């Protein structure tokens, strides 16, 4: 019987599992893709509870099991990485969607063996919101998971996009958005009921933004014959109700980062170590899927034009998570 196997690339999940259709899954797919292609051993670990202490403990466990690279998806790891990055100077850390700092936010520090990646979710959300209104939908919905920064950026971007499109079409008065955080990343019967209520009350399309909650949303949409916008990855295969998806290239960015890392002999190169990359339209890391395009009124060409404008900064999108964007359309923030 084997006792001690080692795994060189380790992923530690935040909350939820690697099939959460969100951070964990995206990062895991990246790890898997890179490791299998490059014959590295890899595995993943789940902390015992939702606390920094448990995340630190699990990172240590992964290192004990031979991890040279630890991938940590989610801002929840900020404190934990801060704690371990100096303790384990030989181990390389990849933090997605956050930057290490102390528990009381007084000190921010990214050590040389850590690389952070942030995404411009607001751009993806903007594109989706814009597309939905252009496509002809007037009664929209935003279903967020928890009110965490990434989700808020998606949501506020979505609102801004819808607003701009409405302005262009001169229909600000007609467009309305129901806006709600369901308080979790897992699907539940409550979410489904709530979405049924929305659809019955006239909502045409809901941007379902966060982990597995899209399952509840598509279930309601299927029954009501309504539509859904997916998130993070191209979800059009998951359900016929999904008209498009606000994507961010999680898996891809992990693969690219790992490639750079190993190209530099297993250490972060100087331009990544201790640094934070913010990936958006410029890096080609956000967008709508053109290969599975299903919208009729809003065409791929129109989309490409819009994307260029976002990319070159002609359209500026606020990435603030503090206050809701000021818009002309009606947004019903339900809490």
């Amino acid at each position, binding site marked *: *019987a*084997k*006792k*001690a*196997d080692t*795994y060189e690339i380790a992923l530690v999940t935040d909350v939820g599992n690697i099939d959460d259709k969100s951070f964990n899954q995206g990062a895991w797919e990246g790890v898997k893709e890179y490791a299998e292609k490059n014959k590295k051993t890899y*595995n*993943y*670990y*789940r902390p*015992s*509870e*939702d*606390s*920094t*202490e*448990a995340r*630190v*403990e*699990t990172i240590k*466990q992964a290192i004990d*099991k031979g991890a040279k690279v630890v991938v940590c998806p989610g*801002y929840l790891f900020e*404190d934990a990485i801060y704690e371990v990055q100096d303790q384990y100077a030989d181990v390389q850390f990849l933090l997605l969607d956050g930057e290490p700092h102390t*528990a*009381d*936010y007084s000190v921010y520090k990214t050590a040389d063996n850590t690389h952070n990646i942030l995404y411009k979710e607001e751009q993806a959300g903007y594109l989706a919101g814009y597309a939905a209104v252009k496509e002809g939908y007037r009664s929209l919905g935003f279903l967020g998971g*928890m*009110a*965490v*920064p990434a989700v808020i950026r998606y949501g506020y971007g979505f609102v801004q996009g819808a607003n701009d499109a409405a302005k262009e079409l001169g229909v600000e008065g007609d467009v309305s958005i129901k806006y709600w955080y369901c*308080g*979790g990343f897992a699907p*539940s019967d*409550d979410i489904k009921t709530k979405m049924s209520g929305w659809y019955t009350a006239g909502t045409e399309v809901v941007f379902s933004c966060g982990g597995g909650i899209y399952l509840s949303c598509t279930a309601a949409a299927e029954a009501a014959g309504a539509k859904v916008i997916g998130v993070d990855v191209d979800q059009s295969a998951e359900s016929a109700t999904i008209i498009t998806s606000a994507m961010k290239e999680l898996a891809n960015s992990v693969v690219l980062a790992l490639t750079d890392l190993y190209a530099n002999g297993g250490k972060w190169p100087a331009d990544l170590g201790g640094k934070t990359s913010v990936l958006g339209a410029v890096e080609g890391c956000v967008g709508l899927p053109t290969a599975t395009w299903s919208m009729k009124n809003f065409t791929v060409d129109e989309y490409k034009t819009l994307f260029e404008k976002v990319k070159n900064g002609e359209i500026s999108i606020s990435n603030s*998570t503090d206050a809701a964007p000021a818009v002309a359309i009606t947004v019903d923030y339900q*809490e």
Partner: protein
Amino acid sequence: MKNYFKSKGFITVLASVISIVVGLLIGFILLIVFNPAYAVGGLGSIVSKGFSSSDKFAKVLYQAAPLIMTGLSVGFAFKTGLFNIGATGQYTVGAFMALVFGIQFQLPWWVCLLAAMLGGAIWGFIPGICKALFNVNEVITSIMFNWLGLFMVNLLLNNMPVMLADHWGASNKDRTAALASANPSAIIPKLGLNELFHSNYMNISIFIAIIIAVVIYIILEKRTFGYELKACGFNKDASIYAGINAKRNIVLSMVISGALAGIGGGIYYLSGTAQYTIVKSLLAMGFNGIPVALLGASSPIGIIFAALFISYIQVGGEALQPEYAKEIIDIIIAVIIYLSAFSLLVKNILGKFIKTDTSNVNAEDKAPAPPEPAPVKATEVGSTEEKGGNE
């Protein structure tokens, strides 16, 4: 006489040990089924990980403290004839109160802990009063109060901006503020134990829990109050006949039971590691009190060991990763609890092998020894109907 007690206690412990050993064996079989290559190492880590290093042991103690409290909560109610399935709700409300006093009011940890106790007590009080005055089954009320507690706490937290992490500089508002940034004095003192154990998990909460368990033991076994409470649990009519205020005692039992669970919630969140997350599912820690109480045969001292044991093998179970799903340990625990249900049988069998000393004082025709009562008596779920009670 003393011998008799000794051997009876010995058989009880032996029966538990047998349940545990058989449970582990079944766990080993599971490990073999799922991944034979690592089974031996896996079993090894289950049984030894908790002692393998000081920080792992600290984790055992850290998890055990709230488990002892919820176990005591359930066990105490059992002893007084009530089934408090509502420890989860009381735990949640206790946690909430502790955090409010810590974050909103900026008070020191021991005040917060008292507040937690109060919160749990209130959440036990209502089902208690419904049972005592209106004869509403405490099982149904406490199930409902689990949800009510959860929803109420979430509702309040969402309307108390100061409580949430984003108010204290964090970027998220799905959870309460980290005590480290909001109010370090609300964190249960570590007294240098964290250095000693090389683990931030370590603080004095395990000692608090053990002291409370001993206090509960003394109340139940040595004090007239405990005598009254147990009498009410066993036979309400007889205790009324004996001049005991049974209604008051039912309420008090639930209040104490709730307070214990509330302290559990306080201890867990005041350790400063976990932040309360606003989710819509009931907290498992409260439910885990039930198996702890059962394994500990509802005795406060037994509960200490049961909680330590369950926490210990949970830590071992974490270490099964990544070769196994850590949920396997839950299966093993469930099997152990299930087997402990057989303790009656095991004890009878053992009783035949180990002759108990039944030195009769004045035997009535050598009357037989009474059958060993099942670990938990008087768990009449659902019997709302009550006879003879005066209105």
